[in-house]
């Protein structure tokens, strides 16, 4: 739990007395996640041509960050947590994308 000092510092954030969103908010997030998943699965049935992979990636990233931001509370917590997590994430993506490139993964699949 972040301390009360940090909540006071973040005055631009809606002034909530407690750190975390309400259960109703969690349900809203879950519904959005569910809808996104349904859309993702729909691409299996509906042919959208070359837009397929970009669409899937966008939806995946949105889902990914919604869970991280809301359920894992990164939105509300100390930014150092986000920094650690994002460092790992960015490092992993960068390093492995480069490694896959040397396998000519992107051109040959």
């Amino acid at each position: 739990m972040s301390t009360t000092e940090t909540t006071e510092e973040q005055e631009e954030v809606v002034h909530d007395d407690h750190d975390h969103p309400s259960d109703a908010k969690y349900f809203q997030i879950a519904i959005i996640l569910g809808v996104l998943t349904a859309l993702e699965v729909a691409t299996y049935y509906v042919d959208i041509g070359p837009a397929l992979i970009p669409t899937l990636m966008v939806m995946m990233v949105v889902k990914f960050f919604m869970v991280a931001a809301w359920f894992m509370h990164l939105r509300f917590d100390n930014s150092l947590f986000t920094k650690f997590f994002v460092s790992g994430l960015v490092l992993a993506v960068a390093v492995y994308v480069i490694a896959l490139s040397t396998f000519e993964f992107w051109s040959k699949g």
Partner: protein
Amino acid sequence: MSDSATTDHATTTGMSHNKLAMWVFLGSECLLFGALISTYLVYRGRFADGPAPGDIFDIPFTSVSSFVLLMSSLTMVLALSALQRGDIRNNRLWLLTTALLGSLFIGGQVYEFTTFFREGLGYTTSPFSSAFFTLTGFHGVHVSIGILMLMSMFISSLRGTLRKEHSETVEIIGLYWHFVDIIWIFIFTVIYLVPSPTS
């Protein structure tokens, strides 16, 4: 003894040791799963004489189990918010639900593995099969460890020892649980939904 009561004033940054450690650990886990996913991506087209991923994946089935795991993140966060309100009963209920949803996911994975095996995809069939079972197996082990932790929490709650002041413990287990979920969000899209090579 609850450290969330004492750490706020005692640490330099105001963050609790435990939570910071968990986030550092999760950052580290990104590299672990990244390596496993890359291994799979390199090998997904190398299925030797065995089944190809595009032939064998059952997208509707995996969609359902992915949805189950996604919803377990909701119940996890509800368990936490219940405990933060001091609502022991609902906390217990949601902890158990989360563990059950997780078990359902694992059950689905066991079913999937058995089906694949019957269709001729053994662990040693091809680089693709080894990489697939290793990646999803590692994820499954992570989920199972999460279930163990949730059940430990649930039992401790039944014994009356999981109270409002321990909510940080549940929060940290929740972080782990959500992380395992977002890894699956990634796997579901990149491994299952992105069209795979067929034979």
